[in-house]
């Protein structure tokens, strides 16, 4: 990577390439290595774990996390965070079935309305953060509550007549089907990975994102429209949460309450495992994607071991702590 990239802005110690790789790229490699290791481990404790079908199933589940993590990566890169994921996702899944009523000819309308809702929620969060200067943690937390209240209230606690609708068969087939010998969900994720990486690394919008994450004041003085970029990033996060909601409801057929809850923790964990710096300015979506895969692989290994919920929960936390201690540490004080 050349001039103006985040790596050069990091501390001198970060600049020493090992194995000819920058620190950021090493971390992506670690995250992928962890995923591979977990698959090997899974195969050892539970033969058949690394079979093609099983890997495909795990990657499909990882896609849901990965889509949300895409949005989370965008906002974490500017030192923000999106806590509104659970109910934007849940609201989107319910809006998808209630707007399309399970009819194929309404599927396109449902998709547009649902993604638009995600964009709107993100836009409001972004405006609150930039114009009203509410801290991102508070603003997105409040947005989560607002979306929860609206979703529960408008759907009558998911008791409305249209709430029991299924996702349009077209969407269900698209999610379950395969294209060019590959499951469509994975193909979708691949496209998202390529697009997001392209936007972040090869466009001025991406450069501006990294710039804001490294130094807001400097980027403002350099002519970056900080407010606009910030609002757009939160909109992207909302859109990706909504997209995950659509894919999830297409996968499961029907919407349910609370289906978004696991994705807040998992998306942040994926971002962290992938080596994206939580205070912004460093990291790549490829890392978050690898993080999502290793996270879901870890959960699957623990499930294969018949690990009860409490054990999974503890191991989850310990793994994140170990990863943080390995590479999440800040520079020592001067």
């Amino acid at each position, binding site marked *: 990577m050349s001039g103006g990239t985040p790596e050069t802005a990091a501390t001198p110690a970060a600049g020493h390439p090992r194995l000819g790789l920058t620190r950021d790229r090493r971390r992506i490699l670690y995250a992928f290595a962890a995923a591979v290791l977990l698959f090997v481990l899974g195969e050892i404790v539970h033969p058949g774990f690394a079979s093609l079908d099983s890997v495909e199933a795990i990657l499909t589940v990882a896609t849901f996390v990965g889509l949300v993590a895409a949005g989370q990566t965008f906002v974490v890169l500017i030192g923000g*965070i999106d*806590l509104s994921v659970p109910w934007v996702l849940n609201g989107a899944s319910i809006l998808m079935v209630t707007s399309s009523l399970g009819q194929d000819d309404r599927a396109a309308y449902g998709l547009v309305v649902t993604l638009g809702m995600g964009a709107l929620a993100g836009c409001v969060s972004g405006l*609150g953060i930039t114009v*009203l*200067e*509410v*801290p991102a*943690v*508070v*603003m997105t*937390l*409040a*947005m*989560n*509550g*607002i*979306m*929860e*209240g*609206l979703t*529960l*209230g408008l759907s*009558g*606690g998911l008791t409305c007549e249209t709430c029991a609708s299924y996702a349009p068969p077209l969407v269900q087939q698209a999610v379950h089907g395969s294209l060019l010998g590959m499951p469509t969900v994975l193909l979708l994720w691949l496209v998202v990975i390529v697009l997001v990486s392209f936007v972040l690394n090869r466009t001025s919008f991406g450069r501006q994102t990294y710039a804001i994450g490294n130094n807001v004041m400097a980027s403002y003085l350099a002519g970056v429209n900080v407010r606009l970029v910030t609002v757009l990033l939160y909109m992207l996060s909302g859109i990706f949460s909504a997209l995950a909601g659509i894919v999830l409801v297409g996968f499961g057929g029907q919407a349910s309450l609370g289906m978004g809850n696991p994705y807040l*923790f998992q998306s*942040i*964990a994926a971002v*962290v495992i992938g080596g994206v710096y*939580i*205070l912004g300015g460093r990291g790549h979506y490829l890392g978050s994607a690898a993080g999502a895969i290793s996270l879901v692989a870890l959960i699957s290994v623990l499930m294969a071991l018949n690990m*009860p*919920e*409490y*054990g*999974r*929960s*503890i*191991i*989850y*936390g*310990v793994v*994140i*702590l170990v990863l*943080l*201690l390995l590479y*999440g*540490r*800040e*520079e*020592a*004080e001067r």
Partner: protein
Amino acid sequence: MRIDAVRAAPRRSPALHWITQNIGLILVFVVLAAAIVLYAGIYWLQQDALPGNFELTSTIDNTMPLAMSAVGQTIVVLTRGLDLSVGGMMDLANSLAAVHMKEGPGSMVLWTLLVLAAGAAGGLCNGLLVGYGRLQPILVTLATLSIFQGIALFILPDPGGAIPPAYTAILVNTGQPYALLYLVAVGLFWYAFRRTAIGVSVVAIGNDENAARANGINVIRTKIIAYTLSGFFAAAAGLCLAATATAGDATSGNGFTLTSIVAVVLGGVSLFGGRGSAVGSLAGAFVTTMIVNVLFFSHIDPLYQSFYEGLFLVVAVVLGMAIRRILKRRRS
């Protein structure tokens, strides 16, 4: 800015000075008073009477868990950190108490102390990881949240267990608002704590960590103590929650991670550290409860509750910042 304040001080009346210094605290008490008046008004319209002792007691009892967790959260937020593990620690305290506490003063005292010690120990882990590990507080406590929740589920896999009725009577007496005494005690603790070296250090590192370090403050030790106290108060909150519910549930504390942050923010504590008071957070906790009460009595569909809470949170934060900005402009 601080130099300006010193220079301007002689020209300003002491009263105005006090107001600008404590604006966050004043705002939250004004909001609380407004909420109480609104609540009493709606209550009067519905019931043709003013809320009495029963309403006062149940409001205080219901707020106790949130109030306790908010005090711990305040100390961490003042250091410019965030403790997301509060909910997990409350789960842990809740299930420990529900499984082990038996009738009889010996068991109740012993397990109260053990649970509080467990909370302090959990907080100590957070503090060590944040202080010596130099890790981001939000990530450390997200990880320990998961760990604490896991341990809580291990101790009490299914909701159940029982809290001795005597314990409930001591901690959150349903007949009389005795719980107020604990709140007063916490308030007194805060005023004492704020004047200790540690209390000053907590605010100092929240304002400017490097400057505090340059002035000889032991940043790592201060952070460790702050997180330990947060764990301690979270455990106390978990005990209150168990006492109000009279039974254990290893997941009932989960929501308090976020509501404790809401109470702190409503209480006028700056999420950027160094500014605020635990007394404000206590008031913030009561504002949160009063909103729920007002919504309940105005017959608003409870399904919309989170919507109004979220909206109120944003409005309160924006208004608070606007008033602070106006005062600052007048000062300079």
